[in-house]
């Protein structure tokens, strides 16, 4: 490819769309009960550290997926709303550009990835991320034996000074792709791969899938009339669509 072609090609912004997969998620706030099962599932799957009481007090907890609470009105008409916030895997991620060493970038599946080994810990990505879903390893956290026997061998354990974030359980995606390859399928079937949070959700509020596949459940829900994207006015083009809670009375 000549330099001119290259130049033309790489002047085009946001080319993730031409890749096989574009993983996305929908979160139905009308189904979500805020039970936090997904949070623990994420902790278990992705070797999230136990930071301890003092670090938690300092707001240094590491929860790739967290549930935020917002109250409406006051007693007796108080209404509590839950909204799970995880990495929105933005297609125009504000967090990716500022990394001086390119430790975070947009991979060919439209995922916003973090390369732990490359990270030098400037924490700029966390500053730039409007959703605050990037978590920093302030220390090298330990697991009291034998708790370390639970650690998931498919996910690397992070050391101090490294930024980490939700990966949509990329290890499961890779797994599913391998299976697809072994079975001579070109693509992963819809529903074949589920991140830990989606798998654990009892109310099926979370749906995960490939947005490039028009028949996928997630693609259909994406077009739901209740759908919206959090802070989309910032033009981050998130891959996570929330379905607005229905307000009803008897």
């Amino acid at each position: 490819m000549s330099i001119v072609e290259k130049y033309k090609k790489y002047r085009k912004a946001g080319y993730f769309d031409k890749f096989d997969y574009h993983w996305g998620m929908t979160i139905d706030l009308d189904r979500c009960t805020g039970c936090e099962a997904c949070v623990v599932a994420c902790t278990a799957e992705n070797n999230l550290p136990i930071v301890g009481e003092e670090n938690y007090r300092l707001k240094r907890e590491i929860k790739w997926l967290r549930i935020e609470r917002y109250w409406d009105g006051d007693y007796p008409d108080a209404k509590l709303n839950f909204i799970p916030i995880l990495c929105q895997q933005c297609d125009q991620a504000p967090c990716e550009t500022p990394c001086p060493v390119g430790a975070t970038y947009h991979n060919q599946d439209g995922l916003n990835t973090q390369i732990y080994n490359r990270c030098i810990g400037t924490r700029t990505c966390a500053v730039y991320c409007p959703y605050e879903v990037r978590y920093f390893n302030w220390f090298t956290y330990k697991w009291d034996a034998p708790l370390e026997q639970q650690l998931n061998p498919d996910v690397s354990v992070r050391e101090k000074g490294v930024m980490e974030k939700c990966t949509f359980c990329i290890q499961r995606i890779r797994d599913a792709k391998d299976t697809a390859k072994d079975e001579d399928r070109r693509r992963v079937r819809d529903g074949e791969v589920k991140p830990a949070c989606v798998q654990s959700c009892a109310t099926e509020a979370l749906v995960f899938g490939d947005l490039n596949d028009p028949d996928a459940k997630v693609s259909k829900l994406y077009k739901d009339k209740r759908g919206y994207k959090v802070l989309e006015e910032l033009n981050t083009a998130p891959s996570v669509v929330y379905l607005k809670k229905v307000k009803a009375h008897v």
Partner: protein
Amino acid sequence: MTTSVMGLFDYEDDFLAAARKLKDAGISDLTLMSPIPLHDAEKVLGLGSSAIRRFYLIGAIIGAVSGFALATFSALSFILPTGGRAIIAIPPFLVITYELTILFGVIATLIGFHVVSGLPAWRDKPYDEQTNVNQFSVSVELGEGKDADRIGQIMSSAGAVNVKQVEV
């Protein structure tokens, strides 16, 4: 082993006068030393604009080109799409270009300075330490058709407080 005649002056105008006289006497290779830069002295020697400008220009141009090249080729050598931005993103790369332009320009100027001024020159040369304090000196290297006495005489007549022959 060369010998030079050196005249020391207390006053700037004497010193310049001596320089001019010697010039009129057909002695062109004068070395004028002063504790501060003197434009008149430069005029006497007919020093106009300096060749250093070329270094400056070339350095800047090289810097600009290599700046953009560095950004571009490093971006292409390992494609990491970020934030839906272009791989070859002009605006940020211009910043890099700008900085490298200046960096290379400065370094080129430094080189230019050394090349043009002939420094560093650590070997001995005719020099009197007073010329770096409060005296001025004119020195002429003796050679074909240069009569030490005559030169010395011109200097003294111009008001040299001291005329001596220096061997280096």
